[in-house]
């Protein structure tokens, strides 16, 4: 069961990654070109149909994978970076450093995060760079808690004591000695976090506060679809399926990694 789901996840994921890399070769049309003067259902000519402006949905979907994956990767990178740093400092030093950082985490967790992200997006100009940064800045708390826990555990081990005894600087112990041993759970959290980031990007773009048209993202394709639910349901079905498959495969891979890392 597990093995199957991990393989399935990896297959789908590599498929989407290849699709994103080779988007110009795969997509039959320019994603922003207005090709038809009407909205057409899926056909041999337009595999996924055309949207309200007569653009080819298949081409848009292919290019959309670039956006979703990039946003996912960059946002998670930011979140893991901040989370690891905060968690490591809190866990290693303890005391007031720990208290200060963890209270800040509490503050961040007391926001309904989507509302916070929406507010920041509305105040800045919503565009793809801000989307990545804002999602990263608002989703590091889980990683911080996790890393803190790991550091609390690891700092008591005798090899850390030995490192202290031979006079290693705290920075060296934190990054060179402890971090590699805390990497497993961080990678798992990163994989699952990427799934979350992709979902958040799609909600933001759906509400019109994410990736802006004419750039195609799966989320903003769904925003366009909402108004044509009655006449062009295919516009809503396909981008959603793509988000679903990407996120699902990330969850599968993340859970598989969790098993390898060995926590539960």
């Amino acid at each position, binding site marked *: 069961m597990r093995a199957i789901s991990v393989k399935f996840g990896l297959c789908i994921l590599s498929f989407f990654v290849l699709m994103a890399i080779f988007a110009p070769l795969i997509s039959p049309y320019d994603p922003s070109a207005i090709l038809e003067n009407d909205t057409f259902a899926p056909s041999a000519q337009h595999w996924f149909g055309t949207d309200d402006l007569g653009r080819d949905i298949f081409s848009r979907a292919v290019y959309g994978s670039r956006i979703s994956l990039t946003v996912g990767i960059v946002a998670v990178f930011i979140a893991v970076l901040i989370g690891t740093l905060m968690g490591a400092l809190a866990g290693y030093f303890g005391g007031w450093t720990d208290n200060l950082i963890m209270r800040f985490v509490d503050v961040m967790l*007391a926001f309904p995060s989507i509302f916070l992200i929406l507010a920041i997006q*509305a*105040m800045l100009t919503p565009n793809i760079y801000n989307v990545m940064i804002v999602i990263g800045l608002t989703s590091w708390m889980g990683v911080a808690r996790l890393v803190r826990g790991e550091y609390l555990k690891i700092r008591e081990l005798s090899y850390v004591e030995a490192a202290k005894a031979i006079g290693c600087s705290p920075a060296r112990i934190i990054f060179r000695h402890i971090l590699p041993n805390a990497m497993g759970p961080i990678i798992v959290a990163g994989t699952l976090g990427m799934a979350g980031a992709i979902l958040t990007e799609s909600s933001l773009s759906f509400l019109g506060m994410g990736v802006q048209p004419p750039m195609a993202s799966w989320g903003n394709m769904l925003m366009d679809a909402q108004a044509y639910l009655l006449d062009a349901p295919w516009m809503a079905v396909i981008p*959603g399926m793509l988000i679903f498959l990407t996120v699902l495969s990330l969850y599968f891979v993340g859970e598989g990694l969790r098993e390898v890392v060995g926590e539960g």
Partner: protein
Amino acid sequence: MKSFVLKRLLQSIPILLGVSLLSFFIMHLAPGDPTALFTDPNVNPTELARIRSNWGLDKPIIVQYFYWLGNALRGNFGSSYMTGMPVVTEILERLPATLLLMITSFIITLMITIPLGVISAVKKGKWFDNAVTVFSFAGMATPSFWLGLMLMLLFSVKLGWLPAVGMYDPLAKDGWMVRCLDLMRHMILPVTTMTLLSLTGLTRYQRAAMLEVLNQDFIRTARAKGLPERIVIFKHALRNALIPIVTILGLSLPDLFGGAFIIETIFAWPGMGRLGVMAIFQRNYPLIMGIVMLSAVLIVLGNLLADIAYAWVDPRIRYGKGDEG
């Protein structure tokens, strides 16, 4: 216990202050101010200056913040820029609709998730467990707004069974029963969307918690004593497996609120979430602050309640002697 509650209440004060400070400064990050959005470009500059000074927008941000804080502590959250109504009134008008959705789906979620997680754990590795696992992952991977759209597409657009948006049918006949039924029909889609979303993650937790308990010695003892399996599962195991779930429930409150913002927007549900999204689009500062603060208070209180419930379900946990992690 009492001192624990008191301590936690005191701890939540800096958290709420932090939330208010952070959101206030985030809002004022933006260049320009809200007057730019909803005044006629032709309005004369002196008039504009008068509006700005009325709203206190001409003062330094830090002064504005303390001015806001001073008023907020006295229960005055200012007036909405759009309607001129007090923010508190405007939110309180919308809050019941949101709570109705949230509480209904919360109860339904609990009613489904606990048995599902328990059976899944008991039947570990069997087809039922596998089906539940696949279903949970599928649920976690589905974007809430898309699920909402698909349900709307199927049940309102294609089948025409349920109303797609809103809370009441304006044409509904008078009469208590008719109104109630009408409301329930409008609730089905948003509540289903919310429930399916929170259900899936929780079921995984419930299953994991149950599996852990089932592996413990006292369960083996109970079985060895010859107790019926039903009693072992539901009396001995479940009580212990509920403990982690209580915490997860508390921690999932922000997600529940986040979900409300999106779900209310899709289904045009006249609640606080939709009000909040609109307030953001209109840069309605006082209203945004009011909603952020109310959500934060509810989230902090929810976590506190979860901790108290934690002690209540698990007699081994007794708070009070500086025992916090």
